[in-house]
């Protein structure tokens, strides 16, 4: 008796390891039978898998071969060959019905793949590559249609943050000591955030940074304490980003190149050209927040570079002639 099995129905090959009493077997998991797709008289077979036993150690060789075949999926290229189209008109009918069937088959195939992949962890790991691809295809199709995968702004943002993944996050276990861990982590944070911080004007709130880094690390969650400690090493390691504390106690990550002395020089230059300055003017001129502008002006005042006129018309700063004439 001849038994024929179309390889396209095989969705997964699994080895059932045997023991002293039982020989090893190969299990072929099958996709649901689809009448419309049969190219020869159908044989009713309702089981969802087939077990194959081998007598003389050919098992591993067979498994290798069949997996290779399944990966190549060569029957798909054969299937569209015109001669086959001609001989098997019921399988791949041209025209709208044919297109409809093909679309339907694709959808069903995806569905059964999802079912099988999420049966258990090992299946998902084995089919990960296909599933990543399927996830991409699905989200792209939905984006084409709706503009985005979800209307929820948080879900969109989450999806964006996750997509910037860090490939090999530093973990405590991979480091020989706590010091090494914090050093490596500081480097990871600085290199990951460099672009984002440059894009946001050279400053980023600590909480913002904490969230972004953790999203990129995926499941390797960092505690706020570890994150903070790592950030404190940044200056010592001479990284392009440093951790900075404002007078109010607020902590931010800041580009090393955006130092305060640079800003001070520019403020002094502006003051020379205008004679007097308010925090609002500084904030508008340098595109920084008014609180930050105030903070800078107070700092310069403390250092004797400028002096204040605190009147009913508000707080205005003037150059300190005592220091500049001396």
């Amino acid at each position: 008796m001849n038994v024929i099995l179309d390889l396209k129905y095989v969705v997964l090959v699994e080895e059932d390891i045997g023991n002293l009493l039982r020989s090893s077997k190969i299990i072929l998991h099958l996709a649901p039978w689809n009448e419309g797709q049969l190219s020869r008289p159908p044989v009713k077979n309702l089981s969802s898998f087939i077990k194959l036993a081998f007598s003389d150690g050919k098992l591993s060789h067979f498994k290798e071969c069949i997996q290779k075949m399944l990966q190549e999926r060569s029957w798909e290229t054969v299937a569209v060959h015109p001669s086959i189209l001609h001989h098997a008109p019921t399988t791949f009918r041209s025209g709208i019905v044919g297109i409809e069937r093909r679309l339907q088959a694709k959808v069903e195939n995806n569905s059964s793949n999802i079912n099988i992949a999420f049966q258990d962890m090992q299946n998902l790991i084995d089919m990960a590559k296909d599933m990543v691809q399927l996830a991409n295809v699905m989200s792209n199709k939905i984006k084409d249609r709706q503009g985005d995968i979800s209307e929820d702004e948080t879900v969109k943002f989450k999806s964006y943050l996750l997509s910037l993944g860090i490939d090999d996050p530093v973990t405590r276990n991979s480091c020989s000591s706590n010091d090494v861990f914090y050093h490596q982590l500081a480097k990871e944070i600085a290199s990951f955030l460099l672009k984002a911080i440059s894009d946001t004007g050279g400053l980023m709130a600590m909480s913002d940074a904490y969230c972004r880094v953790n999203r990129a690390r995926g499941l390797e969650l960092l505690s706020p304490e570890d994150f903070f400690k790592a950030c404190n090493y940044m200056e010592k390691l001479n990284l392009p980003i440093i951790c900075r504390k404002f007078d109010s106690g607020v902590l931010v990550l800041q580009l090393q190149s955006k130092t305060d002395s640079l800003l001070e020089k520019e403020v002094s230059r502006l003051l020379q050209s205008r004679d007097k300055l308010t925090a609002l003017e500084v904030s508008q001129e340098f595109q920084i927040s008014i609180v930050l502008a105030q903070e800078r002006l107070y700092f310069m005042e403390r250092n004797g570079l400028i002096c204040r006129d605190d009147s009913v018309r508000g707080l205005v700063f003037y150059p300190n002639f005592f220091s500049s004439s001396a």
Partner: protein
Amino acid sequence: MRKRPGIGAIHKQRVEQERFRGKATELQDNVFEQMTNQMEKFRTNLETFASKHRNEIKKNPAFRKQFQDMCASIGVDPLASSKGFWSELLGVGDFYYEIAVQVIEVCLATSPRNGGLITLGELRQRLIKARGKAQHHQEISNDDIIRAIKKLKVLGPGFSIVSLKGTQDTSDILIRSIPGELSADHTEVLKAAEAQSFTSVKALKSTLNWDDVRCLQILNELLRDGVAWVDEQSPEKTYWFPSFFKPLMSEDEIVLPPPN
């Protein structure tokens, strides 16, 4: 069959094309609907796996990357620890850190609209919606959120809880995610007030399209810093900016208002 010439044929052709187009749209709609269903199934499965197989996923670096990719394209949250006895009791474990990350995420995502100020009630609703449909995603209390935010204390006072009236009503507790140093809101208010040198909550609401809470918060801070003065006599409280008074009077006729 011979092709018919003339207007009749052209007309017939057009009708046929219309029909094909209609069919194509119908097919696409169909496929799209099924795709949306599959995506939903995929999402639910991924959520379940994230919470059940967390440790296995962490152990396998190659797969971890693929898992993250899947989560990114579908928009699934990979962080899904459940609360558990010990985290509830002692606050240990990743549960509260995960909530903290998610809380910041909601605040960041909504900040273009609310300037980094959000009520606890809205935050919780958005958090639950974005976390996913599974049961363990839904059971997040206000207390959980507050505990999670308190874990962030080590990152400085930039991310803080502002209690408006000292009550426990969720609409009276604000979460502030953007510290004053990084906020453009004060500058926005000053720009809006510059022409008239005064403003009010109502005026700001209409020009900047902000909500009450945000306007009031920023005005109060400007008041505190001495940038603005408040006039409580007018029908609606008005806020005056003395630094803008200058153009109204010349240098030598500054007259202090009579004490009243």
